[in-house]
């Protein structure tokens, strides 16, 4: 069996404000080893050009709610990495 059969999943990650500026994109598509967590998403984002500007433990959201780094991600999830919030 070829090594390329290693289970993987592809997710789209939304970026905002300073993080969108850092990566030069408002969303990126990532192919991750499966199973993966939000921490895996962050790790892969930080490996992209500009991604080193992201902190190691940014705020994360999954399916429109705040989520901890150890939450698993599934194909089709709406994932977002959130810069420090500045509403109000």
């Amino acid at each position, binding site marked *: 069996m070829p090594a390329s059969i290693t289970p993987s999943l592809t997710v789209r990650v939304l970026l*905002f404000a300073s993080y969108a500026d850092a990566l030069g994109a408002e969303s990126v598509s990532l192919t991750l080893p499966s199973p993966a967590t939000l921490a895996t998403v962050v790790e892969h984002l930080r490996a992209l050009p500009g991604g080193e500007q992201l902190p190691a433990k940014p705020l994360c959201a999954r399916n429109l*709610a705040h989520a901890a780094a150890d939450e698993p991600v599934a194909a089709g999830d709406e994932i*977002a990495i959130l810069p420090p*919030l*500045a*509403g*109000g």
Partner: protein
Amino acid sequence: MGFVTAEPIELAPLIAAVQAPERGGVASFLGLVRNHHGGRAVLRLEYSAYAPMAEAECARIVAEAEGRWQVSVALRHRVGSLAVGDVAVAAAAASAHREAAFAACRYVIEEVKRRVPIWKREFHADGTEVWVDPTATLQHA
């Protein structure tokens, strides 16, 4: 109408939305664009949101307040380009008595600042601009 809007925010319609004959107290809060931050003169702010999550988080916050106190709550947050003095956020809470109204209004505004995915870019009088990072305020306090 959603919680997040690009239109100017008026307080009166929010108060009208929560007041009722049995509610004798309405507490409200307005957050306005300030002309200074971290010792720099601010000309304007640009607010942006992760709109679907901001709506969902505002709905959760209002539901929490209405579950914790006997209140009716209205909440709006503006996005887009705002000038000094413009209303960025408004909350109103109505209850039979003032204690619950004040408590719920305070809760809602604090949770909005803590949880709702909204960001602001600050444009300074000296021509510089920056994403506001409230977690970094100690560095230039």
